């Protein structure tokens, strides 16, 4: 250690704080100039902390379950009545859905519909809130050598959660659709009008830029749009709800406040951020929103119309036994339909 004279040491001590403040501002600018650096440091820390979080979250989840069990016990009777009613209603809807599903498959078979590729997915546990004060995000714990990449889509058992924005060695950060920076192209299901879902950091994101004349109706379902190639079409997002200020918001289907397990889907979309994905899908004609999703998905081999005749088109559906659970994320008909339309096409040959 260098021995300094007392005045020199005092002068140095006085200079430390201003120098560090300057260094902090330099850091601020550096972080702005090279966002990747900050991201890497952050994910390295998250990687280091994730195992600790996973271990600690087990007893925490147990305590929370006990508390919620107790609460549920108190309202069990009224809850039972409500659930029985709901079950009755859902059973009616189920028969409607099954009939529609069958009809849908018949119609698709007649139309030689190009099936959407069945997406690959992995399921991951949410281990921490990765939002901070000004953001809404969650941290997922993944094993090493996971195949998760930026831009992949997270769903829980009910609907869209968000997109993967940062990926570490054993963690990934998912930006929720409620985050201030989240912009999601959506379609209002009944009017087929397009809109943008804008996060506000609040519990309900706002609907903006819908087509003139197609005002979102209260209770209308909102699904993702394949426009811009960032999302596949028809993932359930939520329902329209007008707030006190008469601004249309969307009540998310996903339970964003209590996420425990999410599924990360790889739709092979290149979407926003890379030149080859954006720009092209925007010009797809009205009404053909759905197929626009699959031709853009460069990974799966269903990109050209003449490939429709080949029965080999849904290789994912045939090869992987894991595909049926995807039905919950995608509209229920797709994986089932993926195998079928190929048959009449084959017969035609």
């Amino acid at each position, binding site marked *: 250690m260098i021995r300094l004279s007392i005045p020199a040491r005092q002068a140095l*001590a006085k200079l*430390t*704080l201003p120098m*560090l*403040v300057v*260094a*902090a*501002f*330099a*850091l*601020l*600018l*550096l*972080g*702005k100039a090279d966002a990747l*650096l*900050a991201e890497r*440091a*952050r994910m390295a*820390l998250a990687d280091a*902390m994730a195992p*600790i*979080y996973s271990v*600690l*979250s087990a007893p*925490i989840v147990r305590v*929370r379950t006990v508390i919620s069990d107790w609460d549920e016990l108190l309202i069990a009777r009224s809850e039972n009545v409500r659930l029985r009613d709901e079950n009755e209603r859902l059973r009616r809807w189920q028969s409607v859905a099954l009939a529609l599903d069958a009809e849908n498959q018949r119609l698709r078979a007649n139309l030689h519909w190009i099936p959407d590729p069945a997406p690959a997915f992995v399921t991951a546990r949410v*281990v*921490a*809130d*990765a*939002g*901070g*004060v*000004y*953001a809404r*995000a969650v941290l997922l714990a993944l094993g090493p050598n996971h195949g998760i990449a930026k831009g992949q889509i997270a769903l829980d058992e009910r609907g869209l959660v968000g997109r993967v924005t940062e990926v570490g060695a054993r963690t990934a950060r998912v930006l929720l659709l409620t985050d*201030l920076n989240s912009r999601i192209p959506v379609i209002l299901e009944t009017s087929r009008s397009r809109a943008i879902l804008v996060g*506000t*950091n609040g519990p309900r994101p706002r609907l903006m830029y819908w087509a003139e004349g197609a005002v979102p109706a209260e209770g209308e379902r909102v699904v993702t749009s394949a426009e811009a190639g960032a999302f596949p079409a028809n993932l359930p997002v939520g329902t329209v709800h007008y707030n006190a200020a008469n601004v249309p918001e969307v009540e998310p289907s996903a339970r964003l*406040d*209590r996420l425990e397990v999410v599924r990360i889907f790889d739709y092979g979309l290149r979407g926003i951020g890379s030149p080859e994905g954006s720009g092209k899908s925007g010009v797809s004609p009205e009404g053909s929103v759905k197929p626009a999703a699959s031709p853009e998905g460069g990974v799966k081999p269903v990109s050209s119309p003449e490939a429709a005749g080949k029965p080999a088109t849904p290789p994912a559906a045939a090869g992987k036994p894991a595909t049926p659970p995807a039905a919950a994320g995608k509209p229920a008909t797709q994986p089932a339909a993926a195998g079928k339309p190929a048959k009449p096409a084959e017969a035609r040959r």
Partner: protein
Amino acid sequence: MAPFDRTPGIRPRPSLGRRLDMAARASFPATCTALLMLLAAVPFGFAGQAALIPAVATISVYFWTLFRPASMPPVVVFPIGLLLDLLGYLPIGVGVICLLAVHGFALSWQRFLVRQSFAVIWVAFSAFAAASAALGWGLTSLMGFRLLPVRSAIFQGVVAIAVYPMLAVLFSRAHGSIAAPEQA
């Protein structure tokens, strides 16, 4: 600044064990701050937990700057701020600047504040927490080129003010015992 020597004179060099003890006691504030911040980041699952990390950091830096400035020098505040940025998903540097500002102003008021009652120190902390939250809000907005919701910043300040008494009680205990190098 070295603590005032109450019994001046020539003494033998402290033994290795004693020096280690002194170092451990001197580093208690920094270690404790980092551990508390990591603890605040553990997903307990209650609403608004994200505001706890900046609150803990601000309280620790304020308290130890007032009562043990030798154990909370700017060189220690800087990495604590960095940890805050990383854990709190703030733009890198924002937390550092906020905490350095808290440290700097607390240090310049230290002589006055340290002699006041708990309530006065708490009221002064409220001003520090509010200013720090406002500074953080301003810098984050500036870095993102957009106005962020003010409510988050207000909430962050309120959480810090509300949590202060709890942590201050714990820290006061530690201040006279485990964090006191002169007792080594």
